[in-house]
């Protein structure tokens, strides 16, 4: 009988010790929860896949260096498969079930916009990785974004065309949101007037198409055409370029920033020579002048990513890097993980050097980048060459 009582007491004591330890441990290292919904698989996996890899890599690195404010980061990533409906569901799940403190995600504009109402209602800081201007224009209190808007990309291309004395452009794009947004910007009267460009052809292909020679033949025959702008991404960037080469088209070829990855050059081979596109500095970090503040950050990211994953970086992974770093910086400046404080800190980010550019976020500009954050690059000798 005594042994049974002794046993019970021992168990109780043990439980008390464990509980105390747990409580102590928890308060000492309660993680900062970051939730993420990305298009890891599906037609937009070229966005979500490198983004997920980047987030996982850097959360690990930050935690290895002691975390943020002495607390580790805990990342929860869900794959939406490119379905906006799933993005909205996962946003709810992250907020209500996983009870995350902050959100980074929405690889595509569709995914982001579907989740925005939920995020605004929940009042949780969110950094979007989507491209369209509509994400931050009109400004939403809790929504920020890191990628340059695709409008900036088109501006960079038109500016380069103007420099080269080219004024008549033909567009070829796919049927994705990214493509259509690029075309809408490329056909925008304000931009066309500003750079003296006119659109003489507009062709479209479907995602998954194996050949675009028919569309390019039409563009080739467009009266007075001087340049072709490819508004797309993924395999199509290679197919269109190869077809362009096959048809012997001689006018200048521009790509949108969707093709900003070494994969494109590897796939298209010699057909890619001479193609130009606007890219985030990180793509050509090694070629930047030492005085460029983005060089160091870009090189560091490139090395870390390529060492870990053995594949070329894409600028889309860079968006995720910037988002995470901006968030961490804001948390540090706010000195707390209180949502409102961090939001305010994000909104007052000044001259933050990221891989996408230098961020200056204000209450009226929740993106913080301008056209100088894009670099013009050209494919030369099977590699990216930094122009300006």
């Amino acid at each position: 009988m005594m042994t049974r009582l002794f046993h019970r007491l021992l168990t109780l004591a043990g439980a008390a010790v464990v509980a105390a330890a747990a409580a102590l441990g928890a308060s000492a290292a309660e993680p900062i929860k970051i939730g993420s919904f990305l298009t890891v698989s599906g037609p937009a996996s070229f966005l979500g896949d490198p983004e997920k890899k980047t987030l996982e890599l850097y959360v690990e690195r930050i935690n290895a260096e002691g975390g943020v404010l002495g607390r580790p980061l805990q990342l929860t990533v869900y794959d939406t498969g490119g379905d906006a409906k799933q993005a909205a569901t996962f946003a709810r799940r992250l907020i209500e079930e996983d009870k995350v403190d902050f959100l980074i995600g929405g690889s595509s504009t569709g995914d982001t916009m579907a989740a925005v109402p939920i995020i605004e209602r929940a009042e949780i800081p969110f950094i979007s990785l989507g491209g369209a201007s509509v994400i931050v224009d009109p400004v939403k209190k809790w929504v920020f974004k890191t990628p340059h808007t695709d409008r900036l990309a088109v501006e960079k291309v038109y500016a380069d065309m103007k420099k080269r004395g080219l004024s008549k452009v033909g567009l070829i794009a796919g049927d994705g949101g990214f493509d259509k947004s690029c075309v809408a910007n490329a056909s925008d009267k304000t931009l066309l007037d500003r750079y003296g460009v006119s659109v003489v052809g507009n062709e479209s292909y479907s995602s998954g198409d194996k050949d675009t020679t028919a569309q390019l033949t039409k563009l080739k025959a467009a009266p007075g055409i001087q340049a072709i702008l490819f508004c797309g991404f993924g395999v199509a960037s290679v197919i269109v370029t190869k077809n362009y080469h096959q048809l012997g088209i001689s006018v200048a070829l521009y790509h949108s920033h969707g093709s900003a990855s070494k994969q494109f050059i590897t796939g298209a081979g010699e057909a890619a020579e001479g193609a130009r596109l606007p890219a985030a500095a990180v793509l050509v970090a090694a070629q930047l002048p030492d005085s460029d503040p983005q060089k160091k950050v870009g090189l560091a990211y490139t090395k870390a990513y390529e060492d870990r994953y053995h594949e070329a970086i894409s600028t889309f992974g860079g968006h995720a890097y910037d988002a995470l770093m901006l968030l961490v910086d804001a948390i540090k400046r706010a000195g707390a993980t209180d949502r409102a404080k961090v939001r305010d800190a994000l909104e007052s980010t000044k001259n933050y050097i990221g891989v996408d550019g230098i961020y200056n976020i204000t209450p009226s500009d929740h993106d913080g980048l301008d056209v100088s954050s894009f670099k013009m690059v050209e494919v030369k000798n099977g590699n990216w060459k930094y122009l300006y």
Partner: protein
Amino acid sequence: MAEFLQFVFSGITVGAIYALVGLGFSIIYNASQVINFAQGEFVMIGGLTTAMLAQGGVPVPIAAAIAIAAAVVAGLALEKLAVEQARDAPVVTLIIITIGASIFLRGLAQIVFDRNYHALAGFSGEAPIHLAGATIVPQTLWVLGTTAALVLALAWFFGRTLLGKAILATSYNPLAAQLAGIGTRSLLLLSFGLSAALGAIGGILIAPISLTSYDVGVLLGLKGFSAAVLGGLGSSMGAVAGGLLLGFIEALGAGYISSSYKDAIAFVIILLVLFFMPRGLLGRRGTERV
């Protein structure tokens, strides 16, 4: 005129690809009345495995052989472990099974390989061939030539060999075939293996033209199915004709009407064809016994 010719060449390039995939659908349908929605994944396995192995240094012919073997294994496994177990199920159930298989194979490819796209070098170089003001890549001729050779081989197989005739007999009337002593189960296995091999060969031929990735099978499966139905299920010639026709409609539609709506135009035409020819272009004009 040169423009028209270029559209025709574009149509041939794409059409030959669809024809090859459609052929795979046709063979399985011939043997089992099942539409194998995982056919596109066999194409993907062929192309992606070859590309990844070649990238890793394996000589292309060996990589191709391994890829075809992998696809055949997948095809045989699909038949033995799934289709055969559910052989008495309604047609829709079998369709869902093949859809489940395609999701499975796609998921597997993402893990075994990666989510990026990969290229394969053209068999006889990349230099385009010029013909009367239009160009065509040599790889397209490879696709066409191989498709033609395969169609002839299949015609000989189904028309002249006992095995081929047995497969056809099984598809016309499985019960009668069994009564005549034909091992229908092993024939079904054979058809799946054959279809998988065909799909894989197609994938390897196509990869130099349009690259390959874990999800090429989705759209190719859809187009291949459309080609097979358009041409008339059960007819290999029909699948090829359907594929080429589909390619032409897409290219000419893009060239002369609207490139945004070319796929819609193609489907409208398919619907019209089916309206006037409810069994496709060359479909088996059977009578339904009641």
